[in-house]
């Protein structure tokens, strides 16, 4: 099994968002960056598939700044074999430009599986996986929460509104991982030490201009100051009255 996992370095979900002086970007000072949580499911799945097959390779590919080497090392510490950093100072705002850079890198080899996280928790774009699949002409299943593979045939489950879609596809394929697919392992000390010696290739890339232009990054509108209606079951009557007469939702 030769598997590529495409990962992203993102601000930790607990990050306090401070907007930079340009009014268009995140002030990155003091922010802790982590491996995108959905990408952890993708890395874990790749490792399990390789372990089951008893042979193969898990390569991790990341588009990002020099500091993303640390993110790649996290995946290597989990057990991936080697990493490639497509180094760009900024991740393009246009996801299609990101997809083009990743697809160009993936084209250089043949893969049985190419895995992504379902979405990145910073920009919520939820599309680089399927965009790359289209650019490579490969079958694609998104938001996979259960996966069975036998030979070159796969069956995946994905959550849809009110049910689960059971999807069949041939390998090689591009899959995006959802929560539920597996329980990602924590890197063990041994893995962390081993990761330092694994190959991490840095390739500078230049993204195209794309067709998106950031106008502004702003805090969300404040929710109107709420009120504590009261304490205990005695407050329920007043709550219902407010929901009917003031909020008009009942």
């Amino acid at each position, binding site marked *: 099994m030769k598997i590529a996992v495409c990962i992203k370095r993102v601000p930790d979900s607990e990050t306090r968002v401070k907007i930079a002086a340009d009014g268009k970007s995140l002030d990155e000072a003091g922010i802790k960056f982590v491996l995108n949580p959905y990408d952890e499911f993708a890395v874990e799945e790749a490792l399990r598939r390789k372990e089951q097959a008893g042979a193969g390779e898990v390569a991790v590919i990341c588009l990002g700044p020099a500091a993303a080497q640390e993110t790649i090392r996290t995946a290597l510490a989990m057990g991936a074999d080697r990493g490639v950093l497509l180094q760009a100072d900024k991740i393009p705002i246009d996801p299609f430009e990101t997809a083009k850079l990743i697809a160009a890198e993936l084209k250089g080899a043949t893969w049985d599986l190419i895995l992504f996280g379902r979405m990145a928790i910073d920009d919520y774009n939820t599309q680089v996986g399927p965009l790359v699949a289209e650019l490579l002409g490969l079958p694609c299943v998104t938001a996979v929460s259960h996966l069975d593979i036998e030979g070159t045939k796969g069956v995946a489950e994905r959550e849809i509104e009110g049910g689960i879609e059971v999807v069949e596809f041939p390998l090689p394929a591009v899959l995006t991982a959802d929560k539920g697919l597996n329980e990602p392992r924590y890197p063990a000390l041994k893995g962390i030490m081993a990761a330092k010696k694994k190959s991490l290739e840095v390739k500078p890339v230049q993204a195209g201009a794309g067709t998106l232009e950031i106008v502004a*990054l702003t805090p969300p509108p404040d929710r109107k100051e709420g009120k504590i209606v009261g304490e*205990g079951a005695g*407050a329920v009557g007043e709550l219902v009255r407010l929901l009917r007469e003031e909020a008009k939702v009942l």
Partner: protein
Amino acid sequence: MTTLAVLEQRDGVLRKISHEVVTAAQRLGGSVEAVVCAAAPVQGADQAAKFGADKIVTLTNPAFAKYAPEACAQALADRAKQGGYRTIVFAASATGKDLGPRVAAKLGVGVAADLTDLVTDGDALLVTRPVYAGKALLKVKVRSQPAVASLRPNVFTPVERPKAGAAETVAVNVLAGRVTVREIKAAPAGTLDVAEAQIIISGGRGLKEPANFKVLEELARAFGGRAAVGASRAVVDAGWRAHADQVGQTGKTVSPSLYIAVGISGAIQHLAGMRTSKVIVAINKDKDAPIFKVADYGVVGDLFEIVPRLTEEIRKLHG
């Protein structure tokens, strides 16, 4: 200027989220062409006219009986290339999130995804999307022609704007594709998905044990089929509730008209999934819980006393 509004159907019935897509499309000005991929005429497709579709096109192919990602993407991309649409609008639903990028890539662009607002701005489209778990809003100018957009569900409240909605059926010739839906395992009858519910009652660790979710289920039932029961990450990770019910950053993003958070402290990752709800009610025994900071109405106290009383009151209203 014409906007292509991509409708959704399941089992030959138009999905309600399609109304939101048409509503958003008609707000862009110009005319709206609604399009749906289906194996046969879609029940309820004519409804698109009520919300502003000047034309309703059904693209038919036997492969469209179930969701056929590759065949649908090809049919829509072919249509988009012929039509010269300025904007193509999808719902950011499970299907729209899968289909939108496939169509966009065939047109050589990306998707302006999960939008909470979009307006025409000269030659461009000006869109707003929540980022960083809803802790910031990103305003972006989309200059691509066409622009491909997907809309966060439950944000664009359907508004009636009746138009002619001239119906057209076009049999399309596309390959069935390599990725096929074998079956849909439906959730038990009568359960409403949190992503689609107008009212959500979510429970967290304050429920103490899985069996206690029955108090929330009773409240949901009192709303008569309009409410779904959601869950925080803590209780999903503990195995009390299914991941499908999880609201939050690693679950579903919801915008119901009423969100009732019961025994949920309000971690950032939970707020990410529900802060765009229209009205938020919090019930929690800890008066300092962060959930009260985003709640419109809070009740402090024992949920096992408060929720059953609320259920009684709601039953009276609906009785």
